[in-house]
């Protein structure tokens, strides 16, 4: 099975004609965008299981309003970002009322950078995923995260600096 993981797979989807056109069916969009959305959510949450739950929820929420969605790609991506951030907020609230402990998160052993990445503060991890996995401009990162441009830049650069520090040590 061919597995594409770069953000440009969204390009391929868009070139697929009606599959990703404004009038694309819900089913065809689900088939073509499920995997890219799970990968984005995984990059942001650090957990594949959580990512699949989030994307499932996003599609379930999208189906009843599908006829109103003008730009499926952009709508679903924003929905995933919002769902991830909502979950992060809930996690913060839960953690405040729970004794400290390590969260059980699946860490692929195939890449030493991954565990460092998922230990970053959530906002930095989100910003890096949108910037370097989704390949979005900083302006778009700021829009999706709901922060000023300077804050988005700061998050990306502080995230990169943290990774560099960890890799160099």
């Amino acid at each position, binding site marked *: 099975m061919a597995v594409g993981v770069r*953000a440009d797979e969204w390009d391929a989807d868009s070139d697929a004609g009606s599959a990703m056109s404004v009038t694309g069916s819900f089913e065809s969009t689900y088939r073509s965008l499920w995997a890219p959305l799970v990968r984005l959510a995984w990059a942001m949450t650090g957990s594949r299981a959580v990512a699949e739950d989030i994307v499932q929820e996003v*599609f379930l929420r999208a189906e009843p309003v599908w006829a109103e969605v003008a730009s499926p790609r952009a*709508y679903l991506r924003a929905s995933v970002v919002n769902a991830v951030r909502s979950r992060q907020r809930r996690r913060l609230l839960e953690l405040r009322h729970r004794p400290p402990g390590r969260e059980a998160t699946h860490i692929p052993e195939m890449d030493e950078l991954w565990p460092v990445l998922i230990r970053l503060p959530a906002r930095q991890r989100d910003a890096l995923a949108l910037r370097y*996995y989704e390949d979005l401009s900083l*302006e778009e990162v700021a829009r999706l995260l709901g922060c*000023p441009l300077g804050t988005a830049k700061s998050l990306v*650069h*502080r995230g990169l600096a943290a990774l560099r*520090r960890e890799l160099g040590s």
Partner: protein
Amino acid sequence: MTVDDVETRLRSTYRRVLAQVPDAPPPLGSLPHRRARLRRPAVALALAAAVLAGIVVAAGLVAGRERGSSTVNVAGTGGGAITARSVQAGPIGLAGTAQAVSCVSASWCVAVGSTPLNDPTPGVNGPRYYRGVHDLFTGHGWRSMPAGDTGGLAAGLSGVSCVSTNWCVAVGETTGGGPQRTVIETWNGKRWNRTPSPNASGSNTLLAVACANHDFCVAVGYLLHFGTASRNLAEVFNGQRWTLRPPPSPEAGNDNLSSVSCPTAGWCMAVGDFYSSTPSPPTVDRYANGRWSQLKIPYLTHSGPALAGIACPAKEDCTAVGTVDPAHGLTEHYDHGTWTGQQASDRAGANLEAVACHPHRCVAVGTTPYGTRGQRPLLQVLPASTPPRQATNIAVNAMNSISCPTSRTCIAVGGQLQGTNTFHKGIYLRVEITAP
């Protein structure tokens, strides 16, 4: 290891790890909720109808309320209140987000931001090119300001400072391909014109500007050398031209200046964030007597302190706001050489992004989570006697800037998601403070 190396490594990590997700999704019918719906179509339809009806009613209520005002009480200030009311959006609102605002009076403000140059439908990877836009508020709503010669370059604008209705400065960066270059535009009372601005080697970005008068302004941002960490960037205007005047940056670490305030000519305070191999306080640089000096700010026990906004109503009197990880509002006050800090909010996910001051009173603005979806404006009168207050009936995606032309009236700007779309529109709030 250089920044380029880290970027390459990071892309490679995403590629390798995320490849474990197969392209083929599980069948739609296998989704648990969907299976339940298929088994109970009548119940599902009834539930869906009820939910949709609720959404419609809720949306109607929210839309109706947003045309009104959101009042939040501020305890400890003699029974006063902050009233935040959304006002007619300006042209930036067509598809962009307002990044900064500067008011000369309660009926004359300028907001700047950027809007996608291409079709407003976000592209596959988002629009790459932006056009800087300026909105003018005259008390009767917002309208677009005439742009003059802006050099034909795609640019985003992040900061603005107005000295009078005839003179403002806006700053930003070029967008699109190649290294970013600084952008400085000047309003002469009739139109905006691109002003020559210096650049250092690397990628140059200006995020904020402050003008004490027509002859003295400072713009700040950051410089990204190729393959190295970011460095503070600052440019000073002497009434004739802009010159590079960067504050010192430590060798090891990433510096970034986000905001600057200049209450008098020749004296400014700039804030931002700094990240290195060890926990670090935020960046604070003071400009006085023609040179920059780094100031010590008390180290916070919270990790990742970053200051996003500063306002100095007078020399040696400044208030800065920002965030500590994992996203709590932070305020710092500077009084004649001494910084004192406090965490402003225990709201998880809250951020303070900007602050505006009059003598003895400041108003900070930011965002805070609302329910499980969306964000709401966060307002706080400083010095803080109570936690920040949330304007619960105004939906925002970002609140970016605030300007207070009087002690009781402020204008705050930001962006708002539009319905089921991902396009943004500018949002403009009029904030009234009725506290004594």
